[in-house]
C-alpha cells in the first residue's frame, strides 16, 4: 500500500518490510528525508528496510554518512536492510567506504524483498 509521506519520500510496505525510494541525487537534504522516513517505518513496526536506488544517479559523501546512520539505526532495531538497484558507480563508492559490509545489495526491489523475507523466516535461536 502506498503511503503519502510528509517528507515527499516515496515508500510503501510489503508485509513488515518497508521499501523507501531514494531520489536522483542523494545529498544532505534528500538523505535526511530518507532517514526520517526509515525511522518512521521502523517506529511503526517494520522489521526490514529496502532502500531502492533505481532513480539515483549520484550519492555524495554526506548521503553516504546518512546511509551509515540508517544502517546503525536499523541494526539497533534488529531490522535487516537491503539496497536495491544501485548503479555501478555508486556500488564502487559503497565498497570504497565499507557500506557493503553491512547491507545486502540486490539487483532490484523484488530480489531485495525476497532476500529479506528469507531472513525474516529464519528462526532466531538463542
Amino acid at each position, binding site marked *: 500500500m502506498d503511503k503519502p509521506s510528509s517528507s515527499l519520500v516515496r515508500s510503501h510496505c510489503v508485509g513488515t518490510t518497508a521499501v523507501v525510494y531514494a531520489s536522483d*541525487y542523494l545529498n544532505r537534504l534528500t538523505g535526511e528525508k530518507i532517514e526520517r522516513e526509515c525511522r518512521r517505518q521502523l517506529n511503526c513496526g517494520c522489521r526490514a528496510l529496502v532502500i531502492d536506488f533505481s532513480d539515483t544517479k549520484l550519492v555524495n559523501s554526506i548521503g553516504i554518512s546518512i546511509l551509515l*546512520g540508517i544502517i546503525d539505526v536499523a541494526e539497533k532495531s534488529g531490522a535487516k536492510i537491503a539496497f536495491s538497484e544501485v548503479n555501478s*558507480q555508486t556500488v564502487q563508492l559503497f565498497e570504497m567506504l565499507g557500506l557493503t559490509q553491512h547491507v545486502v545489495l540486490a539487483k532490484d526491489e523484488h530480489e531485495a524483498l525476497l532476500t529479506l523475507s528469507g531472513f525474516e523466516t529464519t528462526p532466531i535461536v538463542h
Partner: protein
Amino acid sequence: MNKSSSSKNFRRVLAQVEPSEFIGRETQLDRIVARAKPEKVQPNLLLLMEPAAGVSELLRQAYDEIFNRQNSVIPIYFAFTRNETTAVSAAIEFLITFLQQYIAFRENDPAIAQSTLTLQELLARAQANDRQWIKELVEEYKRRISGDDTELVRFCLLAPQQIPAERGRPFIMLDGAQLAQYLNGSVQLGKEVVSMLVRGGFNFVLAGLRRQILDATRKALGEAYPTYEFEHMLVTRLTPHESSQLVEQVARRHEVATSEHTRDLLVQQFDGSPFFINAFLQTARAKGKGLTSHFDCQRLYVEELFGGHLHSYFETLLEEISPEVNTRPQLIKLLWNVVSGKRQGQSFADWQELLSLDEDELKTMLGRLHMHEFVNWEAVNIHVATGPDVWTDYLKLRYALDVANKPRALVFGDTLTDLLKRQPTKQGAQVNLGKVVSRFNCQQVPEVLFDYAKFSRKYKGEEPEIIHSGLETDPKLELPQTVYVANCSSLQIQLPQTCEDKHCVIARTFKQRRYSDAQEVVWLVAYLHEKDAVAVNEADARRWCERLKAVGKDFQFGDSQIWLISNSGFTDEALELMEKEHKAFSSNKQQFKLLSDWLGTTGESGVDAESPEGDSGNPGAGNSKPSEFSLEMPFDDENELIAAGTLELLARRLPFRTEAINQIKLAVIEACINVFEHSFSPDRKISQRFRLESDRLVVTISSRGVVPTNLNGASSRSDTTEAAEARRGYGLILIRSLMDEVEFERVDDGTSLRMTKYLRETAS
C-alpha cells in the same frame, strides 16, 4: 545572484557603460551590491584602490544595480571632485546630490539623478508624502549656511538620516575620498566624512586610494570609535586579459580602429589601468584618430603626455604633491634621477637639502607621494618606486622640459623616437616572473626545464605531445619553497638595458621547507628580451651573471642561484660560461612556459598563453596551449551539481572514459561540499578553475577562509555530536581515491584544492 541588470527593464542611471560592457570587476560589484540591505550591515566596507585602478565606474554600476531593484534600499552615490575647493562647498554638493538621488529613486526616474536642479526645484519634484521632511531639511540648511562651517558640514553629511524609516534605508557610496583631504578651509573633510558616516549609523562604502584611506579612517576613528572595524576590499589594476577586453570594448564603443598589435601595446603601456585606457581612447575618438599602427599609438600617446588627459592627470597630481612651483622641478629631478638609475635612493635629510624644505613641508610632500605610491616612505627611509610606464614616461619628459630645459620640439621628437624604439621589447611575451617564481613550493619539476642545452638537444623540433610525455619521465628537480619575491626596482637595483623592471626578480627561498641558514637560497632571476630574436651571447650572459652576482654580494645574500631566461635561448659559449663560472640555470621562452604550465600559473599572468611571437623558432610550441575555464558561484544547496555539470561538458573534450568522468564529477562535488561545509568565506563564494591539457584535467577549487576538514586532522566544526556528523570526512577520502593527484595549498586568504586526473587510458 539575480541581477536587475539582466532584466530587460534595466535602465542606466549613473553608469557610463552598460553592465555587460563593464569589465573585470564582477566580484567586487557583487560584494558591494550584496551589502545594500534594508537592515544594518556591519562592518562597513572600505574600497582600497591601487592608484589609477579606477573605482568610480564600479560604484556607479553598483548604484544602478541597486536603483533598478526599487526595493527599500535607497542608493546614494557621491564623488568628491577637484571642482569643489572647500569642505563646505563639497558638503553642500553632497546634500544636493543626496536629495536629487533620493527623489529620483522615489520617482523611479533616472533623469532626475542625471539633471542639475536647485534645492527649490528638488522640493517641487518631491512626492507629496516626502515634501514635509525635505522642506524642513532645506529650511534648516538655509538657517545654518551662515553659521559655523564644521556644523554645516556635519549637518549636510548627516542629511540622509532624515529619510523616514518607512521610506527605506540609504546605502551611501562615497567615491574619491582621497580628494577630501586636499580641500581647503578650516574643516578636515576627510575626517568629518568618516566620522559622520559612522556616527550616522549608515550602511556605506567608502572608496579611495588604499594608502590614504586606511590612514584617514584610523585618524578619524582613533579616539571616538577605537574598536570600529571595516571590511576591506582591494581594487587593483586589471589583468592583461581583462585590459585587453577593455581596450577592445572601449575602442569599439568609441569607433576607434585598432589592431591586435596596438591593443597589446596599449594593454602593456597602461598596465591595467581602466582610467588611462579610457582616457586615451576617448582622445583618439575626439581627434578622430585610428590606432592601427604602432606609430599611430605612440604619436597620440606622446601628444597625450604633452597636453592631453594623461598630462592633466599627472600635472594635477604634481601640483597637489608639490604646490610650491619652485620646488617642483627639483622634485622631478630627484624622482627621475632615481627612477632612471642615475642616483641611488636618498635619505630624508638628503631630500630636505635637495628640495630646500623644512621638516614639516617635506613630511607633507612625502605623505602625498607615498599615498600615490610614487615613493615608499617610512620614517627616514625613502624608496622611489618606478610606477607604471606612463608615469615614468611623463616624468622623463618633464625632466627634459623643466630641469634640462630642452626645447619642447626636441623633447617631443626624442620621446616619440624613444617610444618607437622601445616597441620591440614591449611587444614581447607578457611575462610575470614574480608570479611563476612565487609558486615554487617544493614541487618536483623536470630539471631539463632549467637547462637550455639539454632541452634543445632532446626536444628541439618535437611535437608537444612528445615533449609532455618526455617531461613526465625526465629526471626531476625539487624546487625550493619561495617565501618572498621582490622586483629588482623595489630593491633599487640597476639593470642592464635589455630587461624590464618586472622581468628581474629576487626570490628568498628555502630548500625542503627547512628554515635554516643552510637551506636558504636566494634566486636571482632575469628574463632577457633580446632585440631581433637572437640568442644571448657570451658577453651578455657574462654581464647579466656578474650583475646578479654583484646584487647578491651587495645585499649579503648567502647561497644564491642565478637563472636566466631568454626568448631565443643562448649561444654555446654563453651556456658554457653560465655553467662553469656561475652554475646558472638557463631556459628559453618555451621552457619557461612549460614550467609555468607545470606550476599552474599560465592564465594567471605568469605567461600570456596568447603571446604572439617567440615560439616560431621552437616547433611544436604554441600547439600545446591549454584551455582554461573558470566558474564562480555562491554557496547554495546543490550548486555543486552546476560545477559537476560544467566539468562534465569540459571533460568530454578529452578522451576520458565515462567512468573517469564520473569520478572527476564526484570529486568536484565533494570538493564543493567541503567548501560549503567548512569555509569561513565572508563572501560565501567558491571559485573553480578547470584546466584542460593534452594529457590531464586539472581542477582547482578555492574559497576565501576555507579550512578543509581533516587537513589538520580535525573538522572545523567541533560542536557537533551527531553520529552522522562524526562520520564526516569521507569527502577527502573519496577525493583522494577518485583523483590522481590532490594538493592543498594554503593561500593568503583561504585554501585552494588542486586535483588532477590523467588520461592514462584512452577511450575504447
